[in-house]
């Protein structure tokens, strides 16, 4: 059941209705039942993989909590210990907790690594064996990937690490914990929640609030417009151009990859709006995953605005622990001596960041092209940090006023270009194709006859559809620019007369019905991030 289908809307209406009809105390059971029914309808028997991961996480959470509590009790019941003795004991206790944490993470991550990456590693090993002239081979397995596994695995790991760090208490109720791990609006493609932020919201029964229900429905509707009217329309020329890239060069290929960037944005953020909208109708606030990414003025800024929950996950659970680990701290000290203050200080953070972007790329899929995608972004951030002083001097030398609109527009355009070109790696079928497309993009920029010879009209969309697409993209830019200024359309609508509000709702629904692009039986294509 796609979240942009009529069945899903009916399903949501049923869950919302039952949720507010039953007593508050048992409303979480409605969410749990709804979530498992949703998962079953989408994935059938693979629901047991989610169930097993949830139970393993639950048990390791309890074990970690028990160890933490026992350690604390022991320390408080032995006040006679000296400071040094306490320190040694604490270190010992931490080591033990770390072993439990590592075992838990290994099991949870193991399921993801096996199901998502087994064949990828197998293929690479087989190529290696072949080139070494051996007869060894890793058999290919026909593995099915459970829905949302890349997302809920990160969610489970953050839960265990947060208990280990003493930031949250382990959940004692297994059924409630199953809900935390499976909440249906976010199970497919996030946002990746933190236990502290989401769990209690799910467990407490929320009172019915008409305005919140309307706000949720409006957000959902905006998500439908983004996905069905814009993303699905963009997919047509994008698919055509990526399939037939050998017939095109220069600006057309850049156009293709820029359109793809907009497609991913509207596809993914549209999905997020639907997820957050459904949750809001139930009184639950999911974390924001996008903050107008195409208004970013640098690559770093872009990644602070794009897929925010994954970025913050990577920062909290990979970047910081690595940068502040003993090994990295020692590396920093040594490199400062050998390479000097400037490089030495930055080296550990750079290395940690490089690992983060490698993981970001690899997380997207079992293919080298995704690794290249991560490395592309990481490299630009590193360059911008390394050359920051040079940039400052250059700006002063050229007397650039950083507050002008022109300068800001230039920075936004530059970021858009770099981010877009990087998407060759995530969209092309494989790394060699991505590199070939990348190379072709830099050729033949003098020939701009495509603007007048009708090339653009042969990409699968006719005049009318290009106009519709352009108008909706302008609308999207307008909405994003208002959001950038902190203006909420939903609050503006809420202040209007009833007739005006309903006119807006009906117009929006009609826009989706008339201009939405559907497959057979009004089913839209699946979401891009659903496959990751």
């Amino acid at each position, binding site marked *: 059941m796609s979240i942009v289908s009529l069945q899903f809307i009916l399903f949501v209406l049923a869950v919302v209705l039952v949720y507010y009809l039953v007593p508050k105390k048992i409303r979480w059971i409605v969410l749990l039942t709804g979530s498992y029914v949703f998962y079953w309808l989408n994935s059938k028997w693979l629901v047991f993989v989610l169930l097993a991961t949830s139970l393993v996480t639950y048990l390791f959470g309890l074990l970690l909590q028990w160890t933490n509590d026992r350690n604390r009790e022991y320390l408080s019941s032995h006040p006679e210990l000296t400071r*040094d003795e306490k320190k040694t004991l604490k270190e010992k206790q931490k080591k033990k907790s770390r072993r439990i944490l590592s075992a838990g993470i290994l099991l949870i991550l193991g399921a993801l690594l096996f199901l998502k990456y087994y064949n990828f590693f197998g293929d690479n090993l087989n190529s290696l064996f072949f080139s070494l002239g051996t007869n060894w081979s890793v058999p290919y397995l026909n593995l099915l990937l459970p829905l949302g596994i890349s997302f809920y695995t990160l969610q489970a790991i953050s839960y265990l690490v947060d208990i280990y*760090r003493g930031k949250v208490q382990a959940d004692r109720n297994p059924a409630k914990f199953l809900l935390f791990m499976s909440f249906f609006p976010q199970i497919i493609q996030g946002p990746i929640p933190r236990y502290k932020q989401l769990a209690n919201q799910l467990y407490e029964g929320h009172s019915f609030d008409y305005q919140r229900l309307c706000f949720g429905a409006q957000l959902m509707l905006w998500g439908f417009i983004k996905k069905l009217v814009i993303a699905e329309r963009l997919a047509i020329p994008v698919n055509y151009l990526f399939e037939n890239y050998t017939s095109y060069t220069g600006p057309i290929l850049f156009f293709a990859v820029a359109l793809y960037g907009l497609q991913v944005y509207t596809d993914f953020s549209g999905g997020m709006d639907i997820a957050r909208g459904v949750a809001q109708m139930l009184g639950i606030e999911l974390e924001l995953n996008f903050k107008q990414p195409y208004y970013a003025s640098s690559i770093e800024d872009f990644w602070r605005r794009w897929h925010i929950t994954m970025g913050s996950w990577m920062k909290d659970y990979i970047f910081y622990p690595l*940068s*502040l680990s003993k090994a990295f*701290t020692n590396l920093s000290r040594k490199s400062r001596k050998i390479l000097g203050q400037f490089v030495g200080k*930055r080296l550990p953070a750079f290395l940690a960041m490089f690992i983060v972007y490698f993981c970001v790329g690899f997380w997207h899929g079992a293919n080298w092209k995704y690794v290249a995608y991560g490395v592309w972004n990481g490299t630009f951030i590193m360059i911008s940090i390394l050359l920051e002083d040079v940039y400052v001097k250059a700006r002063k030398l050229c007397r650039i006023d950083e507050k002008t609109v022109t300068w800001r527009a230039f920075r936004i355009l530059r970021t858009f270009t770099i981010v877009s070109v990087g998407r060759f790696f995530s969209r092309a079928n494989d790394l060699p194709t991505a590199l070939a497309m990348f190379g072709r993009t830099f050729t033949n920029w003098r020939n701009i006859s495509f603007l007048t010879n009708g090339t653009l009209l042969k990409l699968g969309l006719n005049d009318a559809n290009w106009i519709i697409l352009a108008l909706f993209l302008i609308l999207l830019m307008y909405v994003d620019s208002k959001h950038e200024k902190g203006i909420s359309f939903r609050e503006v609508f809420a202040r209007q007369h009833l007739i005006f509000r309903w006119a807006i709702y009906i117009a929006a629904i009609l826009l989706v019905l008339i201009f939405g692009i559907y497959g057979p039986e009004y089913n839209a294509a699946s979401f891009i991030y659903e496959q990751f």
Partner: protein
Amino acid sequence: MREQLLALLEEIRPDVEFEKEKKLIDESILDSFDIISIVQEMNDTFDVEIDVDDLEPDNFNTVDAMIELIEKLQAEG
């Protein structure tokens, strides 16, 4: 300690008025690279071991909060 800390912070981010700012993390004035540099310098200067568990926004939002963290870690030994 305050002067030492301010000197260290200003060396890393000369453009920030640390005494005035109250939401260094919440308002993204400091980014993750700044934080890593600040933690490294704080560890070296004040002979403490700031752990990843201490990387809470509340510990780095203001200069006072950073001093409180250093004092807490020094007391724990």
